[in-house]
């Protein structure tokens, strides 16, 4: 199958001949994304697929600068948006596209949807964001780990014994109380993800269950995607 871009391919990127597939896992912090990506990677590799994992803030170009900027909290929301967009396109062009050209399965730990949801919650214009990411590749599947705030907060506190500044939306001034702010922020984000999910055909996976149960679900879905979209040599 030929991978497609939302509106157009970035300049100097040849859109044809991308034979691999791109699978995205979306979900809030502590929804289990990275755990499942690790499990799926081993599973896919055992099946003989080459896997590349990508995520946010991992670009060689601005990844470190972005991490640093997050600590200081001095950039405007729009500047952060654009910084993240730079990071995203750097990975798209330098990691994702080459891997797809080589026929790999790319597992993305979050994608443009998280970036869009975060920005919308912070007042960005949807059309502006849609245009900004109009050169992103359309994933073969987007799985959304739908997890209740109770589960999220339990997992977060158990793992870190504290809440993250950004994941609590503290920059938004929703509440001076971190826990209250966290709840409000999670609620807003989850509302945005619902809207985006409809628009971009997310497959919702119940993330409140045990790791093996969620894993089984994801594998079943991915097997279908591989069957329909991966140009297996056996079919030739």
């Amino acid at each position, binding site marked *: 199958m030929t991978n497609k871009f939302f509106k157009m391919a970035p300049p*100097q990127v040849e859109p044809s001949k991308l034979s691999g597939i791109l699978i995205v896992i979306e979900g809030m912090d502590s929804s289990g994304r990275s755990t499942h990506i690790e499990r799926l990677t081993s599973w896919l590799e055992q099946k003989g697929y080459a896997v590349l994992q990508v995520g946010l803030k991992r670009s060689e*170009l601005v990844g470190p*600068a972005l991490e640093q900027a997050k600590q200081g909290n001095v950039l405007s929301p729009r500047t952060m948006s654009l910084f993240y*967009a*730079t990071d995203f396109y750097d990975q798209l*062009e330098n990691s994702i596209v080459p891997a797809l050209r080589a026929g790999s399965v790319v597992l993305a730990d979050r994608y443009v949807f998280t970036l869009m949801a975060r920005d919308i919650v912070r007042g960005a*214009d949807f*059309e502006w964001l849609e*245009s*900004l990411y109009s050169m992103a590749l359309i994933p073969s599947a987007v799985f959304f780990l739908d997890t209740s705030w109770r589960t999220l907060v339990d997992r977060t506190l158990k793992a870190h014994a504290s809440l993250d500044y950004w994941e609590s939306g503290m920059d938004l001034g929703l509440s001076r109380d971190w826990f209250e702010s966290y709840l409000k922020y999670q609620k807003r984000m989850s509302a945005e993800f619902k809207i985006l999910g409809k628009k971009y055909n997310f497959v919702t996976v119940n993330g409140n269950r045990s790791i093996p149960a969620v894993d089984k679900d994801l594998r079943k879905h991915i097997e279908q995607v591989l069957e329909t979209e991966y140009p297996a040599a056996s079919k030739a």
Partner: protein
Amino acid sequence: MHESPITGKLIAVEGLDGSGKSTQVYLLHQWLISLGCRVYFTEWNSSILVKDATKKGKRRQLLTPTTFSLIHATDFADRYDRQILPMLKGGYIVLCDRFMFTSFARDAVRGCDKTWLRKLYGFARVPDITFYFKLPLEIALNRILEGRPELKYFEAGMDLGLSPDVQESFRIFQGRVQDQYESMIPEYNFTPVDATLNVHEQQQKVREIIAGTIDLAQYHQRRWVNHD
């Protein structure tokens, strides 16, 4: 929420490398200061926060047309949100050495979609006056190539593979950038300035246009008033 009105004025200078626009905007800045105006000057690609990433990307030739464009937009957004817009709302005359039109010209030459670029910078105001320093390509090229023979990779458009020769690549690249600028004259109502005139003559014209367009008296620094 009530938005504060913009009482300041935004003035940008654009043109090819070697068009002399930086000299002109420097002289303009000095003049407005001498008149006692509230004035602020800012340069393209100068935000400290994203400078490291830009430098790294350029030095290691990591940038694609898209990331080149985005990193400059990030830099611009940082200056726009933290400096340009607050200064405009605070009633300053803001002078910009290059504005979004630089990106529209260069990035379009690199193959970025024009509509995408315009939406990317959709948050920024179109300046009250945009001076475009216009001069024949050969003169601009000669000014640069005579004085500073060591051209940087992206500056010369080497990423486009126009020519293996740096100087030749620079010539072709600048020619294309100029075509883009020319097409923006009507689109953004640029005020062209004949950059073949001598520096003093150009500056007189620029000052005349500003004095004729902006009520400069409104921008004089507020004096301290004693309240009894």
